[in-house]
């Protein structure tokens, strides 16, 4: 028994090569040590450590948000697509488009039926997702993008119904409830199978493995342009904290103008706001207004950072 080999594996490797050979692995050759496993602690009976607090029913209820395909986890409630239409326009269409077509690179929610085996498959809720429960779970869990967990259960039912309606999976006036959500059959529910890899079988051939004449370059990335260092230097020199905060925290909406966000450099979107004055703009940026949550949802930013970003946007617009 090499007692020391129970120390951390790095220690074993470097200082105990003799032990490593019999207890932790084997020496293939000088300087190359192989070690098989981490050293797991001894298994103890349940309750051996006794750490932590018992989780109460109320505490669990506050965090237990997952919904299973069989409907387990759904809260009481129900709503129709009609109930969700205005809410969708207000909360979702910014990124996902009025018809679930997706804006920019944000996810497409609807359409794509029958495209999965085509050259450019479109994987949407209707064409790809196997279970409707995942729609409810995900909207409740992670949406809206800037303010997750801000929707009520009723609103989540309404949005789920509306998104299913956009995919022609329920009628406009169908009331989606905790009792019938699990019964909705998604078109691609049988489209998935368990991992069965390996699905390739190569051989470690060493010589004359293929005909050299058969080798052709089938693709290469587009040629990279030479960089003008003067231009780069200038742009780096100009980078100020207001700009970096803007790019990190604000550009998500302000660069494209989604949700009526004024676009830096586009004076027409700023006119009324500039009239209100810098102080009012800063107050709105800090406290939030309309679609914009406080500090644009980046609550870790200092007030100074946010103010610098506002000034940056104003400066870009003024110039």
């Amino acid at each position: 028994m090499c007692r020391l080999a129970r120390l951390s594996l790095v220690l074993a490797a470097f200082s105990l090569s003799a032990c490593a050979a019999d207890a932790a692995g084997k020496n293939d050759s000088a300087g190359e040590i192989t070690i098989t496993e981490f050293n797991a602690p001894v298994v103890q009976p349940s309750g051996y450590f006794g750490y932590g607090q018992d989780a109460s029913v109320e505490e669990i209820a506050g965090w237990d948000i997952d919904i299973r395909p069989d409907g387990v986890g759904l809260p009481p409630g129900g709503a129709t697509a009609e109930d969700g239409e205005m809410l969708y326009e207000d909360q979702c269409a910014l990124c996902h488009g009025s018809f679930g077509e997706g804006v920019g690179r944000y996810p497409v929610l609807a359409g794509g039926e029958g495209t999965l085996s085509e050259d450019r498959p479109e994987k949407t809720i209707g064409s790809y997702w196997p279970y409707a429960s995942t729609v409810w779970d995900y909207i409740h869990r992670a949406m809206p993008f800037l303010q997750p967990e801000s929707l009520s259960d009723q609103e989540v039912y309404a949005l789920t119904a509306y998104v299913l309606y956009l995919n022609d999976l329920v009628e406009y006036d169908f009331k989606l409830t905790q009792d019938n959500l699990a019964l909705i059959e998604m078109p691609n529910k049988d489209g998935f199978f368990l991992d069965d890899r390996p699905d390739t079988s190569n051989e470690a051939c060493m010589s004359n493995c293929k005909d050299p004449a058969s080798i052709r370059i089938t693709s290469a990335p587009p040629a990279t342009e030479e960089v003008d260092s003067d231009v780069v230097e200038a742009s780096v020199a100009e980078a100020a904290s207001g700009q970096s905060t803007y790019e990190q925290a604000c550009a998500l909406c302000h660069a494209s103008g989604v949700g009526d966000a004024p676009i830096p450099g586009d004076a027409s979107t700023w006119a009324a706001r500039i009239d209100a004055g810098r102080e009012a703009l800063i107050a709105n940026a800090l406290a939030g207004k309309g679609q914009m949550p406080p500090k644009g949802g980046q609550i870790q930013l200092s007030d100074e950072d946010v103010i610098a970003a506002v000034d940056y946007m104003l400066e870009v617009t003024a110039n």
Partner: protein
Amino acid sequence: MASKTATTAQMLQRISDEGQKLPQAERRNFLKNGLLLAGSAMTGGAISGKVNAAEENLPPNVPAWTRSLGQGVLTNPYGKPSRFEGNIQRRAVPWLTADRFASISFTPLAELDGIITPSSLVFERYHSGIPDIDPDDHRLMIHGMVDRPVILTIDDLRRFPSTSMIRFLECPANGGMEWRAAQMDTLQFTHGMLSCCEWTGVLLSTILQEVGLQKDAAWVLAEGADGSHMSRSIPLDKAMDDALVVYAQNGEPLRPEQGYPIRLFNPGWEGNTSVKWLRRLEVGDKAWYQREETSKYTDLLADGRARKFSYLQECNSVVTFPCPEKPLQDKGRYEVAGLAWSGTGKIKRVDVSFDGGVNWRPARLKGLVLPKALTRFGLDWDWDGSPAMIQSRAVDETGYVQPTFTQLRAARGMSSIYHRNAIHTWRLHADGKVTNVQIS
């Protein structure tokens, strides 16, 4: 005496400061090269820069830093790399994602040696940005089909017996942009969703054993405390094998980017299952079919069917020198270097080809060869200045041989996105430059 001591200290500091100002020539070169590289990253191509040595620092002259006092202790209390290494950065591909909050950045593999990725350079992947978590206010809830539902603090977790393991972390989308054609022009972007750290924490099996599993328990849902509440269903077999609830990486507390204060880590499995900012583990008898295991992280095949719960990162490898960021400077003898890894266990061998896969030579495995960890390989090679097609091919301890692109596409089509582990080809040009190509 006290004032005299202070004066001496101040004088030394001044001398030190003066000393730092001396090598102006290098500083200018550094700035120039650093900016050039930062710029080339923006446009997608980082070409390695060579800092020209200043004559006055070379023998027989004695460089300025040898004739002056350096900076004292605590100049950088948490440390930082040499200012001459400003080119070593995580980088992103702007067109890849809609925004910076559900996005990814890449590890600069070409700049790294050995098998450990510095914490600062581990690739980033967020679905709702990095939450700013006070560890005193963070809790891990364990409930569901357990005898004792429990809420643990970070201090509670740190009281359990700890385990450390060196394991790779790889996003299953690593190389995913290359399914249809060679598209990225650097190693950082073709393979940089890959890192390897020493991870320290509590085995999930220890925690589950402690709270007591009920009959029929078969799955564990892991959920994060970020805005996306990232969630994945983990089979109980994995949870009871080598899954780790991690609070430290490379000896220091987890970085916020990596899940501070705690994350799950599933060795050998796709990175997405290693849920960061872990807040909740629920034990159940069925899988939850979360968005990240249905809509995403499923592998669509050519016939329209999709593989689900495809957790494993199969055997893979890539040559890291030479590569587009590290071209060859001249003819002569080189050690070609690379990385190999496999989610099933240890790397058994790596072969390297210089003629596009016609003939292969075995490489040396170097340093530690650990299961489910990056493994460094090397091979001496005399470059005669001819163009070459450089490839590496890894074999793991199960005997699985890394596939060719042709084989992988034949099995899966072009739209799988994830788990692209095909043999990679670098085209070495006669001038020493290296570009990314795919070949038949």
